[in-house]
C-alpha cells in the first residue's frame, strides 16, 4: 500500500539522518584524538595502539560516510542491517578503548551503555530488537577481553597488573557478571521505551489510515452528489421547459381564448415554473462552487457600475412593492473580479432586501473604496435577523421565515462567490431594525 510505503520511506529518512549525525560525531572524536597523538609524538612517546584505534574509527567512519552518500534505494530492513553493522564496529572500537585505557579499571565501559541507548533511538516496531543485538555484542566483546587477559593472550594494562592471580580472577569474575547483567537490564529498559514509542506510532499510523480511507470515501460521495445534482438539474430542464412553454402558449391565447381568471392561474403557474428553474440554477451553482469547479473570469471591473446594473435589473421588483432604492456609488471603483458573478451577488442581496422589506420601505446600496479592498453593502429596513440566527445566515438551505419564497441557497452562493474572489462577506443586523450585508473583495492588480 502507498501509505505504508510512504511511512517506511519516512522512517528510512529518519534513520539515515540519525546515522549522518553518528558519522559527524565519529569525525569529531577522531578530530579530537589527533592532537593527543601529535602531543604524544612531540613528547617522544610512541602512540602505538592509540593511533591504530583512531585509524580504525576514522576508516570505518569514512566507509559509513561513503555508503551514506551513495544514492541507493534500500528497504527498511537493509538500512537497519547497515546501521547495526556500524554499531558493531562502534562496540569493537569501544572494547579496544577499554582495553588500552586501564582494562578492568577503565571507566569507558559506560560507552557500551551509550551505544545500547543509541541503537534504541530511531528504531521502531520490531527493529527495536537491535538493542539486544548491541547488548549481546557488547557483552561478548567485553567478556572476550576479560578472557584474553585471564589466559594471558593479551598483555594486561593498568593497575590490575599488580593484583595477585586469585584477586585478578575474582575481579574478572565480578566484573563479567556485573557488566553483562547491566547490559541486558539496560537493553531491556530501552527496548521497553522504544516499544512504547513505536506502539504510539503504530496506533497513529492505523488511525491515520482509517481517516484517509474515510476521507477518500467522503470525496467519492461528494463527487457523486455533485454529479447527481448536475445530472438531475439538466434532466429536469427539458420537461420543465416543455411545461413552461405550453403554459405560456395557453396563457398568451395562442391556442384559444382564455378568460381573466384562467389567465391569472396560468400566470401563477408560469411564475412558479420560473421559480423552480431558479432553484435548479442555484442548486447547480452551489454544487459547482463547493466542488470548486466554477471558473471565474476575472477582469478589472468597475464594482459601482455592476451595482448600478443590479439595481436596474431589480427596479421592477422594488417598484412593485413601492420600495425606494438609495444608492451611493461613487466614481469607478475597480477591482479584479468576475463581473457576472459579482452581479449575481448584488442581485441576490438586493433580491433578499426587497423580499424582507415591507411595502414603501427603503433599501440602500453602497460601494466604497477601503484601501486595498472595495467594500459594498446592501442594507434594508426590514424585520432584521435575530441574534441567535446570525451565525447560520450564510449556511445552505437556511430559511428563517417560512412565509418568504426562496431556496435558502442565495446567500451561501454569495458567500462562495465572494470567497472565490478572496474576499469576505458578513452581516450586521438587529431584530426589528433591518439588516446590512457587506462584502469586501481585494482590488488585486486591477490598478496596474
Amino acid at each position: 500500500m502507498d501509505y505504508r510505503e510512504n511511512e517506511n520511506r519516512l522512517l528510512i529518512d529518519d534513520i539515515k539522518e540519525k546515522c549522518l549525525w553518528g558519522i559527524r560525531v565519529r569525525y569529531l572524536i577522531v578530530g579530537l584524538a589527533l592532537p593527543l597523538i601529535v602531543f604524544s609524538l612531540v613528547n617522544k612517546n610512541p602512540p602505538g595502539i592509540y593511533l591504530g584505534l583512531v585509524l580504525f574509527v576514522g576508516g570505518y567512519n569514512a566507509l559509513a560516510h561513503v555508503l551514506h552518500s551513495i544514492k541507493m534505494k534500500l528497504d527498511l530492513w537493509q538500512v537497519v542491517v547497515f546501521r547495526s553493522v556500524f554499531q558493531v564496529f562502534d562496540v569493537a572500537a569501544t572494547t579496544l578503548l577499554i582495553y588500552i585505557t586501564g582494562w578492568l579499571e577503565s571507566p569507558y565501559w559506560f560507552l557500551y551503555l551509550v551505544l545500547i541507548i543509541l541503537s534504541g533511538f530511531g528504531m521502531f516496531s520490531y527493529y527495536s530488537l537491535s538493542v539486544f543485538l548491541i547488548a549481546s555484542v557488547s557483552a561478548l566483546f567485553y567478556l572476550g577481553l576479560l578472557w584474553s587477559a585471564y589466559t594471558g593472550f593479551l598483555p594486561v594494562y593498568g593497575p590490575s597488573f599488580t593484583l595477585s592471580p586469585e584477586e585478578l580472577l575474582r575481579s574478572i569474575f565480578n566484573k563479567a557478571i556485573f557488566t553483562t547483567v547491566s547490559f541486558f537490564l539496560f537493553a531491556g529498559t530501552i527496548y521497553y521505551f522504544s516499544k512504547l514509542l513505536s506502539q504510539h506510532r503504530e496506533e497513529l499510523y492505523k488511525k491515520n489510515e482509517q481517516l484517509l480511507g474515510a476521507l477518500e470515501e467522503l470525496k467519492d460521495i461528494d463527487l457523486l452528489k455533485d454529479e447527481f445534482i448536475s445530472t438531475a438539474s439538466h434532466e429536469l430542464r427539458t420537461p420543465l421547459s416543455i411545461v413552461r412553454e405550453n403554459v405560456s402558449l395557453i396563457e398568451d391565447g395562442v391556442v384559444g381564448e382564455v378568460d381573466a381568471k384562467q389567465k391569472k392561474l396560468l400566470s401563477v403557474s408560469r411564475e412558479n415554473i420560473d421559480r423552480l428553474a431558479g432553484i435548479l440554477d442555484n442548486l447547480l451553482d452551489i454544487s459547482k462552487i463547493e466542488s470548486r469547479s466554477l471558473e471565474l473570469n476575472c477582469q478589472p471591473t468597475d464594482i459601482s457600475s455592476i451595482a448600478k446594473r443590479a439595481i436596474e435589473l431589480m427596479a421592477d421588483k422594488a417598484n412593485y412593492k413601492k420600495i425606494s432604492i438609495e444608492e451611493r456609488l461613487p466614481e469607478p471603483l475597480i477591482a479584479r473580479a468576475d463581473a457576472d458573478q459579482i452581479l449575481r451577488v448584488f442581485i441576490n442581496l438586493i433580491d433578499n432586501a426587497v423580499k424582507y422589506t415591507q411595502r414603501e420601505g427603503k433599501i440602500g446600496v453602497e460601494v466604497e473604496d477601503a484601501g486595498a479592498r472595495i467594500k459594498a453593502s446592501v442594507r434594508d429596513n426590514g424585520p432584521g435577523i435575530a441574534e441567535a440566527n446570525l451565525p447560520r445566515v450564510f449556511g445552505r438551505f437556511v430559511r428563517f421565515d417560512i412565509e418568504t419564497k426562496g431556496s435558502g441557497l442565495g446567500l451561501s452562493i454569495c458567500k462562495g462567490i465572494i470567497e472565490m474572489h478572496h474576499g469576505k462577506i458578513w452581516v450586521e443586523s438587529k431584530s426589528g431594525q433591518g439588516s446590512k450585508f457587506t462584502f469586501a473583495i481585494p482590488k488585486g492588480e486591477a490598478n496596474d
Partner: protein
Amino acid sequence: MTELKRRILVIEDEKEMLEAVRLRLEANSYEVISASDGAEGLSQARSEKPDLIVMDIMLPKMDGFTVCRMLKFDENYKNTPIIMLTARTQEMDVARGKEMGADAYLTKPFKSEELLAKIKELIK
C-alpha cells in the same frame, strides 16, 4: 402575405418541445420546418435554406456543435443565424457554442419572449 413569412428551422429531438416551439413561432407568423436529429437538421438546413436555425445541443446522430460548425464553415450557409437551446448551463458550453459560431445561446427553460426577441434581432 405568405412570401413575406420568414422560415425558421427548428432542430429538436424532444417532440413536445418541438411542437411547443412550433406553435409559438407560427403564432408569431413564422414558417416553421423541423428536424428531430442533427443529421436530418443539417440536410434540411442545406436544402430548405431557412432564414434562421433554432437547435438543441444534445441531438441524436450529430450534436448541435457539429451541425453548427458544418454550417458556419460553409460559405453558402455561414450567414444563417443560429440560436442554440440547451439544458446545459456550463460556462464552457457557452464558450464552445460561441466558438463554433452560434449567434445566441438560450438555456432551458427559456422564456418565449427572449426567444422571440433574439429571433427578431437576428433576422434582418
